[in-house]
């Protein structure tokens, strides 16, 4: 088993095919989208492949150390960050192929007009602990 992070972006991903902001959908289309996402996570829990899923608020700030005895420096929130993560799902699957298959399904969530969004999701493998047997 290997863990993969499926990343959803507010910004920074290539534009999806069905690119309409959610507040322009009908309430029924929003419900259908939510239902699809919930069903997807529930199905992965049943297959034993779901690990975690979280959503992030769109606003964040940069923070860094500024020397002994000084408060950290903060910068932001930035309106124009190029890349902005919206949330993630962590899955634990048998193969990279399975991770890609699932990301493809998640990307097919319905959007405006009830058609799939074709949203681009970033698939990132976790670095794992070294195996016990190496030779």
């Amino acid at each position, binding site marked *: 088993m290997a863990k993969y992070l499926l990343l959803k972006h507010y910004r920074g991903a290539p534009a999806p095919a069905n690119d309409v*902001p*959610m*507040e*322009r959908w009908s*309430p029924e289309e*929003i419900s259908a989208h939510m239902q699809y996402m919930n069903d997807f996570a529930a199905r992965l829990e049943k297959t034993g492949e779901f690990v975690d899923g979280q959503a992030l608020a769109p606003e964040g700030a940069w923070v860094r150390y500024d020397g002994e005895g000084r408060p950290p420096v903060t910068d932001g929130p930035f309106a124009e960050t190029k890349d902005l993560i919206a949330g993630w799902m962590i899955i634990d699957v048998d193969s990279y192929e399975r991770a890609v298959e699932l990301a493809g399904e998640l990307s097919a969530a319905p959007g405006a007009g009830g058609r799939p969004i074709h949203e681009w999701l970033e698939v990132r493998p976790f670095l794992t602990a070294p195996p016990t047997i190496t030779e």
Partner: protein
Amino acid sequence: MDEVLIRSLAPSVIAVLVRRGADFAAAEDAVQDALVEALRTWAGPSPCPRLRPDDAGPPPDPRLRPPGEGPVRDPKGWLITVAWRKFLDAARADAARRRREDRFEDEPAPGPVPAVDDTLQLYFLCAHPSLTPASAVALTLRAVGGLTTRQIAEAYLVPEATMAQRISRAKRTVASPARTEPGTRGIFGRPGDVATVLRVLYLVFNEGYSGDIDLAAEAIRLTRRLAAGIDHPEVAGLLALMLLHHARRASRTAPDGSLVPLADQDRGRWDTGLITEGVGILQAALARDRLGEFQAQAAIAALHADAPTAEETDWVQIVEWYDELTRLTDSPVVRLNRAVAVGEAEGPHAGLAALAALDTSSPDSRPRSGEAHPVPRHTAVAAYLHERAGDLTTAARLYAEAAHKAPNLAERDHLTRQAARLNTRRPH
């Protein structure tokens, strides 16, 4: 064996161990171990695997094991016996370790015989003013609520090891000699005050629920017990507030998990038993004429509960209660809610005026240019009032903006739907 009954015994068993000479931290640990063992052995092969700890440990002394599958005749006695043995085991291991380290300390002296209910003292200890809210909540749920570390961790979505550390740090804080003043009464040392206890219980009630423990129900149980032992109108006020909100819970979310606003809720699904109880408790508290924040909030909840339909809500009286609340705690959040009530009582334009007045009332509640409004839900309220005033374009824009800043998924989803509803409406 009922898990809630087992849990309810926890604080009195802790008190027994402390009276026998254990310090609070060690007693609390021992009782936690005993509770975990009780849940495992009394429930038998549990249908709910979460109740079983990973560290199964050695099988319990057969003399202590409940006979067969039947119920335990004296659960409290069983817990005291097992917890005391756990305490002695830990103390012996600790003493052996100290001998190895060539150190010696006197055994702790037995505490004085308590004059007041030990269980109530535990509430005050766990709401110690030196604790952060998160630590006070965790310690209260374990020592007073009798929940296991795992259940608390699941409820707050943190790893069990993290929650275990949070609890042991909290216990070190409350047990620190520097924080215990000489001459304080009771066996648990220096406590916090009623207001701190109520804030902790309010947090438990309000901070959502997940995992297999219903934190709202747990908060009500703990507040009920506190109210039974302490004659204080604000304790009654908080209990009434919780009951009145809990009564609406089933109607607050749609089957798909989305939020249903108060005005759209199916009032037939409100729990009339809880409402009647909450109103009764509130009236008795108000009659004592020592008004406080929780009584005022409960009064507002009671007025909502009293309306057969949303249209029949007595908004004029609700505005009066918000005026009382503003007098008691002048917070921007209260003023924001008051603006909503004014909007219902006197029309959306009056509501928008009240909202504008909020921005000028204090520098902290005014937005700086380019930043989010510092008062949570301010934008959502503005959107709602603009919609009622007929400015649907502004309302849709503000709903979308509010969704962007929403603090949780359910609200974001709800606000996005509101924007969507206005954006996709058919032109008349």
